[in-house]
């Protein structure tokens, strides 16, 4: 009798213990890319450290943003990562809250541009990327953004759609090349429209460009550095352009939802992700370029990333409010001139 009682008490304790561990739960919303690597480098070690469950939701920015907005009054997501302009949109919609950076022990290690890219501490940058032109060095040379429209590239070049994160920055740099970098992007959109028959496609996914390059369908395309890993392994003579106008790019930030149910865990998780150790591992796996300035990687790794104080300083990023405030007009103008 006593034995049975003891056994059942132990079993009960084990069960409630397990239940308590499961109650500690952090829900995050992230991009769908490189999830295997993230699981190995970030999610699993964090779960082991916090003794909690990490629930990961993935999807594209618009879907995830729409979901956050729909659950605004009763958020299920505690923390999310998104582009700076989506984070600004979320902040304006009142979905997110100010991040108390004093609770992030790794905050001071970040590059300056990553510390408050959205403004008002509504987001902390955890990675950024350069956007420039990937091209076949054995076929063409590219020294300016305008070189995308050289004769040799007629019918052999892809350009990012204005709806992608690469589109507006690429248009902005093209504007600089043709001497008109107004925020309306009118001049570069017109330039693309004039040449649209010579552009193979306006891509929406970076994986699509890699395939077209591999198939030798195209010889050049503006891409984000985060996709470069695939190009350098193609066995083709690929080069990364350093146009005289400079390189552009984008940044992704972490945000904290307003009314997050597991705020403490969310802070722990953000700090964990920003730590030198995790940022180094993510860099070495060529997943994300580090926003933590203390990260040091070997040259052949750095080659494939947006890395180093010098590179970071020279990125010409479009400010998030410029993107957010002009995005609808860009899409309208693009549809009118290019989309037909």
């Amino acid at each position: 009798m006593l034995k049975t009682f003891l056994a059942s008490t132990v079993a009960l304790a084990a069960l409630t213990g397990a239940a308590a561990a499961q109650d500690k739960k952090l829900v995050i919303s992230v991009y769908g890319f490189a999830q295997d690597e993230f699981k190995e480098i970030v999610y699993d070690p964090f779960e082991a450290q916090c003794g909690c469950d990490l629930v990961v939701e993935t999807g594209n920015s618009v879907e995830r943003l729409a979901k956050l907005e729909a659950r605004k009054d009763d958020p299920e997501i505690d923390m999310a990562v998104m582009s700076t302009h989506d984070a600004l949109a979320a902040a304006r919609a009142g979905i997110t809250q100010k991040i108390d950076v004093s609770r992030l022990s790794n905050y001071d290690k970040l590059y300056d541009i990553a510390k408050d890219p959205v403004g008002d501490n509504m987001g902390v940058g955890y990675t950024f990327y350069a956007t420039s032109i990937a091209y076949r060095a054995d076929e063409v040379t590219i020294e300016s953004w305008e070189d995308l429209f050289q004769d040799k590239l007629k019918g052999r070049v892809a350009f990012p759609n204005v709806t992608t994160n690469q589109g507006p920055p690429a248009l902005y740099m093209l504007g600089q090349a043709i001497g008109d970098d107004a925020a309306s992007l009118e001049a570069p959109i017109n330039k693309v429209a004039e040449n649209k028959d010579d552009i193979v496609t306006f891509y929406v996914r970076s994986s699509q460009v890699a395939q077209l390059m591999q198939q030798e369908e195209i010889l050049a395309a503006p891409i984000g550095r985060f996709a470069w890993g695939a190009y350098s392994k193609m066995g083709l003579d690929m080069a990364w352009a350093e146009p005289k106008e400079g390189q552009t790019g984008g940044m992704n930030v972490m945000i904290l939802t307003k009314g997050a149910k597991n705020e403490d865990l969310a802070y722990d998780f953000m700090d964990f992700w920003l730590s030198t150790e995790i940022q180094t591992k993510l860099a070495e796996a060529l997943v994300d370029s580090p926003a933590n300035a203390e990260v040091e990687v070997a040259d052949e790794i750095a080659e494939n990333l947006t890395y180093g104080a010098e590179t970071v300083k020279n990125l010409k990023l479009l400010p998030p409010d410029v993107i957010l405030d002009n995005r609808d007009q860009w899409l309208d103008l693009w549809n009118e001139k290019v989309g037909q």
Partner: protein
Amino acid sequence: MFQNRMEALALALPAALFAAFVFLVPVFILLSEGFRAEGAWTLAPYVDFFDSELNRTVFWRTLKLGAIVTAVSAVIGYATAWSIVTLPPTARGRMIGLVVMPLMISPVARTYAWIVILGRTGFVNQTLVGLGIADSPIRFLFTETAVFIGLLQLFLPLMILSLISALENMPKDAVPAARVLGANWLQVFFKVILPLTKEGLVIGGTLVFTGSLTAYITPAILGGSKVLMLETLLYQRVTVANDFASASIIAMILMVMSFSANLLLKRLATARNKR
């Protein structure tokens, strides 16, 4: 079978309620979105939609490609179906198996195969250049031609299968009788085969046309943003602009187009019957 109508209705009620709540009500809510602006019922969103040149271009392109794919699949479908039904039973079974086979492969895989086949270094261009028909590789990808080829391959089996079953149900001696009475093959087709198999054509035509209008993967991969169709435009409106009103309008247009196509095909079939 039932003692009274009430009993029958009572039995049908749970299913009817289920269908109403999980299907009709959400569809109604979704579609009504396009008829509302600033809290009032209006047709203005539709007027605005067709006011845009891009939307008009996409609408006509979708209608045009849908019609061409349906017409071409009907022509190829009749020839294929006829040659299959005239085979002995074992061979016929095998041939039908071959027709069905592509339906078992994911449309994504099938469409990606076209990217390789139609590319600059793909089979089609190598053949054209090799035979001296073209001087340099022709650009097929991201053109209407590529979308047409992809859609045709995707939906042709549905047309063939509909026509095979229609042709199998045709009286076996109808064609020989017409031939004996002196009709040539063209007359046999238009005066005998077509009227007797029109139901199959209506079903096949509706499936192919509706399928072409609502296909997403094929136009997205083979056409991209340069060859937008209504379905890819719908996706763009929702995922890029979070604009559910336009999406609802496009969904409504697609439904109206599908129903109209079905009615039109039925009308054509009965008109021929009366003559």
